[in-house]
């Protein structure tokens, strides 16, 4: 196949880099940012399918009231595992994979700053998820207390909790090492002339995300370690009988948890900020304001955590503070949405699949942002908390937000990775199929929540039947539609129309100056960057 020959050409072309092991060893010992990036992305895709299968178990059970398919205990394990797999297994590794592939290419670096650590960061993950998933087969079953692992419930399950916590530690270590590597790369490896304010926004958003990761993943590690010692070593951090306080866990968890949701979305903002200018054939509007908006969102994300726990009983002053602080986040977020729209204004736009996903992101993510604002209103939150309204909110921001952006990124850069164009027609079908069914899946959940259907339950009152059926149908259609995505990628890896170096007519930036497929080693001699090559120039200045 043509693909194999290109791969060979690259190998021989780069043979001054010592020889490369082949077969499995090539991947196990790889320190190359492109290979590691590919492994991250493949891993993430597998986890996306595993987590998706769990979601379909949930939706199948909820198709009708009553208990049909699974027992409540297993249902709870599915909701918990689905969330853990999707957040830590699908979305986060996908972003890290994209960073591995693209950050060095975008800043003109030959590789990541710490290639060996990069190998470790990746290879920890399969072990972490094996540990996590195998708890499902243990006598006490997997974790069933929700992905937030609130005590006392999480401490009342079986001994498999120890495996879950160890898995979370490993995922945390992997993320922290990945984040350190990304920051070290961005701060130390930029090509001459690539000043901070010439960096593409994907690089900027990842830089800020990496700081968030280093700041909060250790806090999560601390929280779950306290759970571990409470459960197995007789401490009483969260055990009221021993002088502890379960509400303390919620504070520590959400101190991690809210920045975490921004870890899941900031790189998506970066991706969309790359794609919209390309297909509008204009530079990004308000580049500097995008950078500052990202930084302020990251800062604000540290002072809003208690909006997840308004109902624990807080003094009025605290509720007001957290309510207003949460609402303030809408301001920099609004700046971003404004800038994306202004970038498209009077651009000569075309609508290839990456652009479609990016536009889908802008519209649907905004719906999730608006339901977030509704949830931030304290008296409304008392009504909506722990209902399907919250479920609808976070799926709009995470599926039509983070996942749509990741898919946009895959379509956008796939020609650069494989050297082939993907099948545009199938890509468009994938987009429209996903967009229609994802709304059928999640929009009715807003109404279910407003009508009072609680989240994390296997059975429900009969008046919720119709909307649950609609939602389940949407879920199955959306879910099976993703097999098309897998097929499109497979087809594109195998062959297809040859991609040029620039790939997209309007694309700017260093990654489009190297051939497609990008050879294993790029920018061994650093390129020189000036304003003419820089992706972004603030149109306001």
């Amino acid at each position, binding site marked *: 196949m043509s693909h194999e020959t290109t791969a060979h050409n690259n190998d021989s072309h780069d043979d001054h880099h010592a020889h490369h092991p082949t077969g499995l060893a090539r991947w196990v010992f790889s320190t190359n940012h492109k290979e590691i990036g590919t492994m991250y992305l493949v891993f993430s895709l597998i986890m996306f399918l595993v987590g998706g299968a769990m979601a379909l178990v949930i939706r199948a059970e909820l198709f009708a009231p009553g208990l049909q398919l699974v027992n409540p205990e297993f249902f709870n394990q599915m909701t918990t595992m689905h969330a853990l797999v999707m957040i830590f297994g699908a979305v986060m590794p996908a972003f890290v994979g994209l960073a591995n592939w693209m950050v060095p290419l975008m800043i003109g670096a030959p590789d990541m700053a710490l290639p060996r650590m990069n190998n470790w960061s990746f290879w920890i993950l399969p072990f972490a998820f094996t540990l996590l998933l195998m708890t499902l087969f243990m006598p006490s079953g997997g974790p069933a207390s929700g992905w937030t692992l609130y005590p006392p419930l999480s401490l009342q399950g079986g001994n498999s909790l120890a495996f879950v916590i160890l898995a979370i530690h490993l995922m945390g270590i992997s993320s922290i090492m990945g984040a350190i590597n990304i920051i070290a790369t961005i701060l130390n490896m930029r090509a001459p002339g690539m000043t901070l304010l010439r960096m593409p926004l994907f690089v900027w958003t990842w830089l800020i995300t990496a700081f968030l990761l280093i700041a909060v993943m250790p806090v999560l590690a601390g929280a779950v370690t306290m759970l571990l010692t409470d459960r197995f070593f007789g401490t009483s951090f969260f055990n009221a*009988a021993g002088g502890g306080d379960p509400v303390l866990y919620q504070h520590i968890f959400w101190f991690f948890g809210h920045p975490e949701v921004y870890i899941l979305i900031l790189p998506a903002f970066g991706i969309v900020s790359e794609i919209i200018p390309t297909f509008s054939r204009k530079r990004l509007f308000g580049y500097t304001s995008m950078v500052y908006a990202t930084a302020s969102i990251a800062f604000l994300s540290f002072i809003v955590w208690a909006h997840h726990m308004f109902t624990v009983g807080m003094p009025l002053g605290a509720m007001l503070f957290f309510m207003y602080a949460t609402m303030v986040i809408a301001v920099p977020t609004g700046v971003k949405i404004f800038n994306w729209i202004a970038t498209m204004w009077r651009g000569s736009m075309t609508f290839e699949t990456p652009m479609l996903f990016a536009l889908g992101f802008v519209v649907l993510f905004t719906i999730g942002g608006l339901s977030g604002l509704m949830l931030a209103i304290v008296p409304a939150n008392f009504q909506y908390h722990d209902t399907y309204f919250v479920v609808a909110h976070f799926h709009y921001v995470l599926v039509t937000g983070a996942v749509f952006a990741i898919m946009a990124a895959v379509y956008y850069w796939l020609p650069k990775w494989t050297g082939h164009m993907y099948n545009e027609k199938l890509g468009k079908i994938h987009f429209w199929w996903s967009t229609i069914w994802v709304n059928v899946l999640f929009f009715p959940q807003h109404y279910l929540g407003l009508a009072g259907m609680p989240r994390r339950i296997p059975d429900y009152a009969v008046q919720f039947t119709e909307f649950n059926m609609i939602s389940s149908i949407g879920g199955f259609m959306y879910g099976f539609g993703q097999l098309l995505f897998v097929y499109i990628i497979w087809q594109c890896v195998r062959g297809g129309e040859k991609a040029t170096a620039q790939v997209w007519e309007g694309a700017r930036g260093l990654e489009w100056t190297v051939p497609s497929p990008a050879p294993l080693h790029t920018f061994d001699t650093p390129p020189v960057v000036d304003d003419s090559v820089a992706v972004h120039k603030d149109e306001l200045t």
Partner: protein
Amino acid sequence: MTASTRKKPWQTVIGLTMMAVAMFGFGYLLVPLYDKFCEITGIGGRTADGPVQVELSDEINYDRKVRVQFVSTVNSGLPWRFEPTQRFMDVHPGKLYETMYVAYNRADHPVIAQAVPSVSPGRASLFFNKTECFCFTEQLLGAGESRDMPVRFVVDPNLPERVELVTLSYIIYKNDEATAVLAAVN
């Protein structure tokens, strides 16, 4: 490789690693911070862990009446009945009062339990002083044993004017370890 323009990353890496370690410590630091914060502000209805010394010579405010409600909850792991003998009392700030909770062990073996108090509204908790309480120590009841357990308290005359109703609530939990040790000894 033309490394001259590319800096060595080690300083960055060491700095960032230290930041990660510090944040792990910060997670643990949140525990005492949270406790102190609740103690100072009264958030969460915390009250002192031991008897409070009050000057009973303090003037008693006979013009003011505050209603104190008594509430109890038994954690599902504890085979006890546990209830206040009075639902409420109307008290004068500054005066010492006593009330009883009654506990009964339904199990066929001795059980050790710990009661955890909480006062609401939170801002009243700083002005609710217990001079004696069964919650200061663990409680042991033999199989089928029943006992009256006293609480003595004074409402501080400085209790904000707006507060007219104070609720004293106890949740009582089984102390699993202590109970197990007891079973092993017997």
